[in-house]
């Protein structure tokens, strides 16, 4: 068994920054840091500083302790 703590693609979810200021917008994450943000995901993806390997994430607009789907 392999435990993926901080390696590989799943490790991209180790986000060091508090994303609260970005609620409702899109962020590009690399190495746990926000590289860029935008309200439009295509605009964000097409920025020069954003790489194909960055995680593009829509930051939820609210914090939810309980989620019912």
């Amino acid at each position, binding site marked *: *068994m392999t435990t993926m703590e901080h390696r590989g693609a799943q490790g991209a979810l*180790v986000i060091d920054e508090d994303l609260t200021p970005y609620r409702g917008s899109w962020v590009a994450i690399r190495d746990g840091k926000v590289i860029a943000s935008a309200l439009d995901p295509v605009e964000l993806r097409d920025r020069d500083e954003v790489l194909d390997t960055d*995680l593009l994430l829509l930051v939820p607009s609210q*914090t939810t302790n309980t989620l019912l789907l």
Partner: protein
Amino acid sequence: MDELTVPYRSLHAGDSPRPLLVLQVTGIGGHSGLVVGLIDSGADVTSLPARYAPLMGYGTTANLQTETFGQVSGTGNALGATVPCSAVVPEFAEVVVELWPSFIAGSEMVLWGRRDVLARFDVTIMESRQAFTIAPAPG
């Protein structure tokens, strides 16, 4: 068999840790990127916030159609893909999942569904350990 154990994650401060999985999604326009979603055994198919549609090359009547879906509080409308895209779990890139995603207005969370992503992987939720395991399904 290779198996990953992935800890639950929170997306931002104060949010509850949940079983989030990162997939490399390739849209119908050929663009590819990492997308994080919640493993949702209650979702028949994968759904994404509508704002993901243009990012994945969707947005015309040639590749989307209106569909009705059931949810806890009744029914809702979504835009369903009529053209598939694909996704892989990067750590298991040999397993290519064909996705026919539904795009839901007002949603802010990607849900990896049972008939597509979860049909190709065995996933075990270990709530007591705040982690899940994932491995390619046999066959």
